[in-house]
């Protein structure tokens, strides 16, 4: 600049507390804040001294009495017992002191530590649901639901496990019988705005509309496909478009527009295809994490709870953008069911901030899940897991992105039937609406462009 003279920024004068803080930082840290005697050590020393004194006296007495005098043992044992007793009582007092210190630390932190910034509710996080009170949750789950007769329930289970999935009517029967599925029922109203939102009937209506894509016989699985940044790298959520890419649906202006949304595109299109393929008998709906299989498209509900306001179905996004009547806001595809250390996991691939490969426990214990997660985080662990050929194939897909292969257990990744705060609502079966398979086609999963027979 013209003058060439650099102006030093004015230094703010230090307050007394700042000066004291700096002085303190220079000083050597004194643990405990002062001299506090170590009673355990002191007592040990005392016992040692007294015991030596006693032994000397005893030796003198024995020497005076001659070599034949009888020795009396047991004192050492008694001393050890006394020392242990003292140690136990002392540690009880130490624990009391620790408790006092912890309480004080909590109070000091609350009063003096800088407050953390409020976390935003984002697509990935689930702060609203986690902050919901237990009472509110109980109120939500204690709905008037009538359990289905065992035989009927078994029939529906069988259809979901081995068949083509349920029709909308059957799914509604199940929804009426399960307290966590009431939001799927028709005429159900959101307590947030008092309006009905898209449920199963709404999806069916959308599926039957003329302008809904007909994807029957067009599905060719490309399980190892990468997301197409050119098509939807616009910063919007692209889970549905990624799933349509995995399903191998042809790109066309109409198709891309239609399947870019879960509620308005992907889910109705898949339901329509299932209805057409089964002559209206099945919509391909599957409930319960244990019933999901390779190729099923998982439909996630939007966040259901909002602190202090009861049910909440994504009226607003994290940035305050209105999302209208979006009920289902995320989709993922089942990559398979794997067994690790005797526990079953659902391998799910989806696009969030990147293409993620998530393992959701189906019947695992906490310890086993933790062990699996630990294995996934180390090279050695991954090498060990790759000994399982099915898992090796899945892991190979995201081999270059170790941080995107995870075991997930939060509300966002749990089944709504098991956890009322869960976000996985249901799945739509796609194995029955695939394109006719070509004979003798190479099914190597590394070839992303080739069909993956299910």
């Amino acid at each position, binding site marked *: 600049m013209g003058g060439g003279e650099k102006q030093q920024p004015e230094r703010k004068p230090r*307050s*007394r*507390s*700042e000066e*004291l*803080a*700096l002085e*303190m*930082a220079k000083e050597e*840290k*004194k*643990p*405990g*804040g*002062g001299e*506090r*005697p170590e*009673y355990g050590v*002191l*007592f040990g020393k*005392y*016992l040692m001294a*007294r*015991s030596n*004194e*006693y032994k000397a*006296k*005893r030796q003198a*007495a*024995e020497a*005076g*009495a*001659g070599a*034949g*005098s*009888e*020795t*009396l043992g047991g*004192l050492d044992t*008694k*001393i050890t017992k*006394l020392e242990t*007793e*003292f140690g136990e*009582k*002392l540690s009880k*007092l130490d624990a*009391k*002191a620790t408790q*006092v*210190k912890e*309480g*004080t*630390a909590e*109070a*000091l932190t609350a*009063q*003096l*530590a*800088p407050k953390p910034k409020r976390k935003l509710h984002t697509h990935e996080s689930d702060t609203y649901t986690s902050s919901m009170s237990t009472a509110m949750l109980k109120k939500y789950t204690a709905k008037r639901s009538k359990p289905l007769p065992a035989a009927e329930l078994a029939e529906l289970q069988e259809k979901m496990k081995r068949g083509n999935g349920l029709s909308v009517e059957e799914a509604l029967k199940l929804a009426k019988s399960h307290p966590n599925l009431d939001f799927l029922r028709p005429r159900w109203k959101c307590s947030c705005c008092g309006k009905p939102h898209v449920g199963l009937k709404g999806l069916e209506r959308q599926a039957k509309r003329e302008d809904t894509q007909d994807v029957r016989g067009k599905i060719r699985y490309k399980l190892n496909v990468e997301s197409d940044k050119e098509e939807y790298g616009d910063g919007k959520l692209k889970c549905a478009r990624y799933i349509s890419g995995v399903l191998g649906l042809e790109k066309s202006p109409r198709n891309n527009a239609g399947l870019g949304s879960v509620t308005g595109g992907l889910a109705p299109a898949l339901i329509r295809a299932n209805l057409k393929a089964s002559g209206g008998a099945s919509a391909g709906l599957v409930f319960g994490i244990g019933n999901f299989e390779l190729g099923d498209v998982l439909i996630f509900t939007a966040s259901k709870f909002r602190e202090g306001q009861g049910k909440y179905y994504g009226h607003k996004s994290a940035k305050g953008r209105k999302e209208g009547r979006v009920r289902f806001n995320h989709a993922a595809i089942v990559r398979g069911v794997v067994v690790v250390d005797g526990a079953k996991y659902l391998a799910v691939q989806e696009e969030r901030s990147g293409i993620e490969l998530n393992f959701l426990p189906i019947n695992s214990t906490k310890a086993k899940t933790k062990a699996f997660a630990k294995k996934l985080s180390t090279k050695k662990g991954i090498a060990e897991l790759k000994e399982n050929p099915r898992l090796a194939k899945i892991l190979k897909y995201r081999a270059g992105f170790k941080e995107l292969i995870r075991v997930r257990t939060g509300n966002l990744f749990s089944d709504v039937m098991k956890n009322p705060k869960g976000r996985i609502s249901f799945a739509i079966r796609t194995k029955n609406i695939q394109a006719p398979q070509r004979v003798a086609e190479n099914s190597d999963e590394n070839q992303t462009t080739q069909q993956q027979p299910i």
Partner: protein
Amino acid sequence: MTDATTQPVTAEITVQSLVERLKASPTFNEKYAPVEQELMIRRLDDLTPDQRLKLQKTLEAENQKLTEIEKQKAELFEDYKLKAKLLMDREYKVITANIETTEKQEAEENLQKQINKIQ
């Protein structure tokens, strides 16, 4: 029109006194890293008189409780010192008494032997 005696006590709590109390607090010294301690001391300036009073009370309560625990520890130590002393003294008495008995028995046996020889 407020009388000086009715002024809240909180006005007298200075940052200096709080810093000293913090420096003397075992919790503050043990649970926080030097950087955190420095940050916490800096925040003292922003505290309202009520907050200062609250902090002072927290630190006083801590000091009182820990002093009480220290006192109990000292008492326990003295108590067990005495117990150990009594135990060893008792053992010493037992062994010296036993040695005396053995000596007496030996002397009596010797005497008996001598008497037997004479007879």
